[in-house]
């Protein structure tokens, strides 16, 4: 019985990453590491969704250029975003003409797509797979909260959807690059939260559950990792998550980080912090990736969290089911 625990003996590598972002994201502390930024929210195109698709496509092309490849050299394209039926990823896949699997795990797609890429590579079926996740502020706020034109007030627990895309090129083991060594597929955790303006709190228990299962299942402890980084819990959710982890008897003070907390610095204009599928993917593929390449981090655990609600399920007063997937990267 594997119970959702995966070990990759062949150590598939992240050979390169491509990260694109929008105008507000240029004030992120991670912005110097972004490959391409746009001064326009719609990437200079007519609609938010067209701009969203361009972010994804450019991130894919940038990642490919770093491994001297063309779309025709890629075996699989694994993408996900938060727009209904993931049209930005679908349009990107249409343009790139790479065999495509759309993956939805909300903001946990950054890790779920990496896990799928690692599985395909481990199975010997892929020499190069592109995996990534993205989000665009205006289109996602409109879909899940309120249209930005509405100018609605947000409580301090609300999060700010980032406009960004992060894509990784996953290949068989490549010396000198971070290797994917372990993963844990999350279970859906639903503790009955119903407030979409406090998604961090809804997702925190899922993150704590996956962390515990990863540590128990793989026989590791938190001190084995240079950093354990959650995806987009943001301030409210991150505090709650750390409380849950501390209750289980672990120390969260040294190596715990959250991409949502850090993405926009400590700017209260962004309420509790960042969210969106593009949040964790860009931070993982810039800060974490580069620190591994430079040797600062030897072993990291990335736990991306996703709130699996739909606008309809919320209107029907359903609770918010949440998931967290974990992946472990190692540098030799």
């Amino acid at each position, binding site marked *: 019985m594997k119970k959702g625990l995966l070990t990759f003996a062949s150590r598939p590598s992240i050979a390169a990453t491509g990260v694109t972002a929008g105008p507000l994201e240029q004030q992120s502390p991670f912005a110097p590491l972004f490959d391409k930024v746009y001064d326009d929210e719609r990437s200079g195109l007519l609609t938010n969704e067209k701009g969203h698709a361009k972010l994804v496509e450019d991130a894919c092309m940038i990642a490919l250029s770093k491994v001297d490849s063309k779309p025709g050299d890629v075996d699989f394209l694994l993408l996900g975003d938060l727009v209904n039926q993931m049209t930005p990823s679908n349009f990107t896949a249409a343009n790139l003409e790479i065999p495509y699997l759309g993956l939805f795990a909300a903001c946990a797609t950054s890790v779920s797509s990496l896990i799928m890429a690692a599985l395909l590579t481990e199975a010997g079926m892929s020499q190069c797979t592109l995996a990534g996740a993205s989000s665009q502020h205006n289109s996602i706020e409109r879909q899940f909260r309120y249209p930005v034109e509405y100018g609605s*007030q947000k409580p301090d627990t609300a999060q700010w959807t980032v406009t960004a895309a992060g894509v990784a090129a996953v290949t068989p083991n490549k010396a000198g690059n971070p290797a994917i060594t372990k993963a844990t597929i999350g279970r859906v955790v639903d503790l009955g939260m119903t407030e979409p303006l406090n998604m961090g709190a809804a997702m925190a228990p899922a993150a704590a559950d996956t962390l515990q299962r990863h540590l128990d299942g793989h026989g590791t402890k938190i001190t084995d990792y240079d950093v354990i980084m959650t995806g987009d819990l943001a301030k409210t959710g991150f505090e709650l998550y750390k409380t849950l982890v501390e209750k289980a008897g672990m120390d969260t003070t040294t190596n715990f980080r959250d991409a949502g907390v850090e993405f926009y610095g400590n700017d209260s204009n*962004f309420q509790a912090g960042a969210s969106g599928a593009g949040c964790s993917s860009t931070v993982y593929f810039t800060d974490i990736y580069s620190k591994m390449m430079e040797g600062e981090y030897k072993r990291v655990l990335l736990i991306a969290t996703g709130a699996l609600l739909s606008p309809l399920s919320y209107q029907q007063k359903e609770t918010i089911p949440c998931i967290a997937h974990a992946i472990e990267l190692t540098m030799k």
Partner: protein
Amino acid sequence: MVSMFVTAFIVGGLICVIGQLLFDVAKLTPAHTLCTLVVAGSILDGLGLYEPLIDFAGAGATVPITSFGNSLTHGAMAEAEKHGFIGVLTGMFEVTSSGISAAILFGFIAAIIFKSKGKV
């Protein structure tokens, strides 16, 4: 003269405080908060209480959205007196029509000229 401004400011402010409390404490959505205030204004006018508030606070009572509810009821009741039950239907938008038309027109113009932005 000055006391009139002060009364308008305080009464208008208090109506907004109620709105903010509905939003923050009762956790209503923006749309529910808006509708609650409109319905409250409508009911208050039905009970004959909103006109005295306008006499007392002037723009402090006519500017907040509660005044829209007041106008709905006001028009409906006035027409009902003249034309009976059908007047309720025709009168509802009698007083409010200028506000509704203006909202549509200016909303349309703004939508043509400007593009929405997600800036903080």
